[in-house]
């Protein structure tokens, strides 16, 4: 069990479902017997801004914020956001990144250029980089909105907790009508 502790940064763009994914993540870690803390951001940033959720687990956790450079995992729902938070990853840490570009307004209007060297920069710092076609996998599972579960599914095997515990938590937390789609998306991620 991965030294029995860890720091996970879940980053993305407001509206992508980072909070729901983090909620499931934190719940599974709690059930596994850890002390867990999580910090999230609500309000204005959720209107298409950069969002981050921090999840920490250990025998005892103090700060809900991960000290800079000490995140073990960076779960990024969007490529530019992976770069924004990269310095928070410990050298040699794991990056799981959605192969998705959501250009900020300055790029949309042609005033800035979306960086093209993101994978290279990620590899400079991370020990493991997994680029996940979450949009495509989610669509195949029946809903493009389940990208968050695909990405969670890619992260899950790293944490040493059985697939069954994850699926139980998903079934409990997501709305009843979306359980099947979300479970399918999670499994698609798990198999990556």
């Amino acid at each position, binding site marked *: 069990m991965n030294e029995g502790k860890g720091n996970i940064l879940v980053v993305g763009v407001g509206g992508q479902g980072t909070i729901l994914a983090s909620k499931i993540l934190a719940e599974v870690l709690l059930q596994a017997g850890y002390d867990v803390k999580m910090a999230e951001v609500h309000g204005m940033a959720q209107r298409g801004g950069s969002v981050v959720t921090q999840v920490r687990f250990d025998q005892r*956790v103090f700060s809900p914020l991960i000290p800079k450079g000490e995140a073990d995992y960076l779960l990024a729902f969007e490529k530019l956001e992976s770069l924004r938070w990269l310095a928070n990853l410990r050298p040699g840490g794991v990056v799981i990144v959605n192969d998705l570009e959501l250009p900020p*307004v300055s790029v949309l*209007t*042609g005033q800035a250029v979306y960086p093209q060297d993101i994978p290279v920069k990620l590899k400079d710092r991370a020990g493991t980089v997994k680029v996940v076609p979450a949009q495509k996998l989610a669509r195949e599972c029946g809903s493009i909105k389940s990208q968050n579960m695909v990405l969670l599914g890619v992260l899950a095997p790293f944490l040493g907790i059985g697939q069954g515990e994850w699926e139980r938590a998903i079934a409990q937390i997501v709305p009843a009508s979306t359980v099947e789609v979300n479970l399918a998306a999670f499994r698609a991620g798990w198999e990556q």
Partner: protein
Amino acid sequence: MRALLTGNEAIARGAWEAGVLFASAYPGTPSTEILENLARYGEVSAQWAPNEKVALETGIGASLAGARVLVAMKHVGVNVAADPLFTFSYTGVNGGLVLVSADDPGMHSSQNEQDNRHLGAFAKVPILEPADSQEAKDFVGLAFWLSETFDTPVILRITTRVAHGKSVVEMGERKEKGLAPFKVDPGKYVMVPANARQRHRAVEERMQKLREFSEEFSAKRIEWGRERRIGIITSGISYHYAREALGEEASYLKLALINPLPEKTITGFAGEVEELYVLEELDPVIETQVRALGLSVWGKELFSALGELSPELVVAGFRGNGGEDTAPPEGVIPRPPVLCAGCPHRGTFYVLNKLKVVVNGDIGCYALGVAPPLSAMHSIICMGASVSNAYGFQEAFRAAGEEGPEAVAVIGDSTFLHSGIPGLLNVVYNGGRTTTIILDNSTTAMTGHQDHPGTGATLKGDPAPRADLEKICRALGIKDVRTVDAYKLAELEAGIRAALQSEEPSVVIVRRPCVLLKGRGPKGFYEVKRDLCRNCRLCLRLGCPAIEVREEQVWINNTLCNGCSLCEQVCAFNAIVKGGEENE
């Protein structure tokens, strides 16, 4: 039972366990979810009030009737509720009353980062500050006990990281408190000067008793480290940052009651350590009082008074190179929040930008109208300020005998009902001709879609009479009231132009439900016809996140597009059309 709760969920749970019968609030980040969670408990009458002043005043009424009451608001909401708070401090309570002040260091979603711990000395009320969700729940119970024991409202002060941080909570069961008997007591509750003079004396005596009690209050604690060189006085989330950064290398006096402070405990702790530090976010509230005890202490020289602290800022502070905020990483384009694709506010700001008028804004999603390319916002102060700001702006030019620029007020439906109405009444009363644009999206959107008196539903989801904005404006004396469709640009522009030309005060209600309200938005998506597009990029002036430039051409991202059709309307070459089967 153990559960992972946010601080806000824990406060709701704590209030329910403490036997709270009545709760009221106006939504405001980071406090909103407290009432949303309390509303799930059948035993509690939980309500949205039109504003924080009404929330607290209703709560005071319920306290006088003998109920335990919780009132919640964001830090700036307490400014609105300050008038009743300061005098309620004099009367004291019948049933216990806890006011949650949710402060927002770092301004994740606020217009300032005022430190409401100052209210302890200012309003002369005790303040409890929890550091995590367990304490948030437990301190609610302690706050009710303090409130009833010392006959005072109690402030539970939280910050964003406690409100929206999740941690493990051991839950309890509800203890019914019922109603304390109501006693007629004008000397205590009727604050005419003669009575208030007596009550002021009672307040000072109460604070002295609380000062003495604070020494024995068991919610605070001292944690001795491996050695006693560094001693840190702290409370709230800062305690956890300190523990994270220094662990067993330091000793900690972790406070719970931060007003009044346990002076003897502090002096005793200071005497046991070689170097004394105060670690607190924002203002040196504790530090100043520690200095006043004649103690030598390090504080704001090392730890910034701006924004939030963090474990790394604590480490940097102790190294003597702290206090600076961390810079954004190099080469990463910022991603500020934007009006959503299909947002019904977009058209109004597109038109206001085109008309080049001075826009006095207000608090809500529409604050994002300040961002390029819409760039149509010139002031934002506080809830309800837009209308009075716009009128005052115009009146100054009139008084100076100068022709000023056209100015308008832009205010949301919930904000208008919160505190825009007196401003509009003032325009009428003083003979202004201000144009007020009410962006009616039928919800309190920014805080996560709460109902309000204009939506036809209560916090508990029951049907409610729907306040009629047109009739309210007319009743205030506005004769020129027109309602336009937020998705019809020509109608919107004509409406605003006509209102601006009006010789009397006018209101334009721009109406469409928030695009994020399920089932109430437009359908489908739009796309660009390549053969018709001249690449003029006029559509980019809408600042819609669904319209992008790729390889020097304009595209509409059909997974983001919500089908509002504004881009179709601005396109001069009919190159933007409804997408779907016929066009594929």
